[in-house]
């Protein structure tokens, strides 16, 4: 039995600039692996580039992309994919994940915009994911995003996700905070959603905090502590998936480090309470073969 992602298990943290200095002085014991955005680091040298090396040499790392616009109307940015591939090789990065969203029209908007849940969109997006996997010669994972508006859906979100994953033959990065946010914004049962996704494709998970704009409108800000409902949802996900590797994302209103690391430690505690770590879960079916 092999782990889902080579060398990745336990609790991870999204690496952000404000933590770099503190972590390089005192490596955080609570963090089993880091996740970072290649678009923040590719082509960066100097003192900052040197700091990155400190992390990639000490922890396993996952690349979590922001600008690929996998669902965008413009031709796929293949030079970006090749740059990411070269950068992953250079730093020994274990996996590339991206958002199931679009970020551009003829130019970048640098934000995660929604893909309508239609059959046409499934074929289009899956084709682009396959192309990325062909270029990189490895499987990638796509993340379910928070969405606030959509048009003429022909299927529900789990159906859309399942169809894209199957047709692209890729992994899923399951963001439980996004599931919770969407369940409130689009009135569905988050547990039923988790039970409907293809478990064998979940390579790892995300958890994060959100902002309550209104009782029926939550915003995925990554700017607050993880809410109790989301912790409960993470436990529910583990009960079905086993304790798979999970990343805490925190982008704004950074708390004092001990507070942040306590949240990372809580992920590990929940995982350990459920038994052994995520080692030993079978790899998803249909992995790429040469």
């Amino acid at each position, binding site marked *: 039995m092999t782990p889902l992602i080579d060398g990745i298990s336990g609790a991870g943290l999204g690496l952000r600039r404000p933590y770099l200095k503190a972590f390089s002085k005192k490596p955080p014991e609570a963090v089993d692996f880091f996740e970072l*955005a290649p*678009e*923040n680091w*590719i*082509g*960066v*040298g*100097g*003192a*900052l*580039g*040197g700091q990155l090396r400190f992390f990639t040499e000490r922890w396993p790392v996952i690349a979590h992309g*922001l*600008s*690929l616009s996998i*669902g*965008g*109307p413009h031709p796929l*940015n293949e030079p*970006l994919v090749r740059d990411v591939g070269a950068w992953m090789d250079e730093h020994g990065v274990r996996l590339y994940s991206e958002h199931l969203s*679009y970020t*551009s*029209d*003829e*130019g*970048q*908007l*640098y*934000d995660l*915009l929604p*893909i*309508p849940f*239609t059959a*046409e*969109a499934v074929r*289009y997006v899956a084709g682009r994911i396959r192309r990325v996997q062909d270029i990189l010669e490895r499987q990638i994972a796509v993340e379910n995003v928070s969405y*606030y*508006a*959509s*048009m*003429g859906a022909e299927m529900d979100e789990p159906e859309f996700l399942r169809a894209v994953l199957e047709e692209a033959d890729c992994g899923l990065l399951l963001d439980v905070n996004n599931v919770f946010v969407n369940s409130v*914004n689009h009135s569905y049962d988050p547990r039923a959603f988790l039970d409907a996704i293809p478990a064998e494709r979940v390579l790892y998970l995300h958890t994060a905090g959100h902002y309550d*704009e*209104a009782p029926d*409108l939550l*915003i995925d800000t990554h700017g607050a502590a993880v809410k109790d409902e989301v912790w409960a949802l993470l436990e529910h996900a583990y009960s079905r998936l086993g304790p798979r590797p999970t990343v805490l994302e925190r982008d704004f209103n950074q708390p004092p480090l001990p507070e942040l690391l306590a949240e990372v430690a809580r992920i590990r505690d929940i995982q350990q309470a459920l038994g052994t770590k995520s080692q030993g879960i079978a790899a998803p079916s249909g992995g790429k073969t040469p």
Partner: protein
Amino acid sequence: MNGFQDWQRRLTAHLRDPEAHPAPEGAEDRRIGIYRRLVFGNLSRLLGAALPLTREQLGKKRFGLLVRDFLRGHRAATPYFPRLAGEFRKWHEKAQPSRPNDPPWLGDLILYETEKRALQRMPEPPAEPAIDPQGDVVAGIPAPSPLLRLLTLRHPVHKSKDGALADAPPETPAFLLLRRDRAGRVLTQELGVLTAGLLALALDNTRQTGAALLKAMLRQAPPDSRDALSKQGREQLRRFHRSGVLLGTRRSADAPSATSAGSASKHPASARLGA
């Protein structure tokens, strides 16, 4: 065009310019409004973090209007966040003639901030075998460090931390040397006009010796001051060498090897002169 892509394009057209393009139908405006806030807020934050002095000098409101113009008028190509400010600068340089209401110092300030940041993050250039670090920079061909920029600023924007910038520029421009030291810090140094001129010649040069550069520069100086200026110039070249502005001398100007062909091209900083 696919139906879903038509909707996606109408959404981005609206997010770029909500006044000119209505939101795609069918979604509650409160929800589309979240995207309006996210896209504009995120872009403002990215550019504000890269251009903190620009944001401070303009103030939040005017900076926001500038970001909106960029979002509306430009299609950003780079997927890389550290390069966004550079793309923003190029957009602004091009758009400047049609922006009469921008403060006159804005172009200089954006240039200063983006160059400083780019220099901080620039990957370490490979060691240059065609350079002799012990070479005599007066008798030989001086080789400038690639980790520097020479800026000519009509407005003293490098002093913008001291307070609001004046719209009227001083009589003489400021010549600014930005240099990355071994610890990765970018040092800012204001140069006198002759020193800046000499460095500009060295940056633009791959064939002439330091002495020849000095001679060419002093052709326009009054004859009775040339000896003294030439002596100062030679001392300055040696100071540049000691401080790392000049790495040493080129071993051969006429036969650059295949691997060092890049070193025989003009210094990237030379293009910035006279900006």
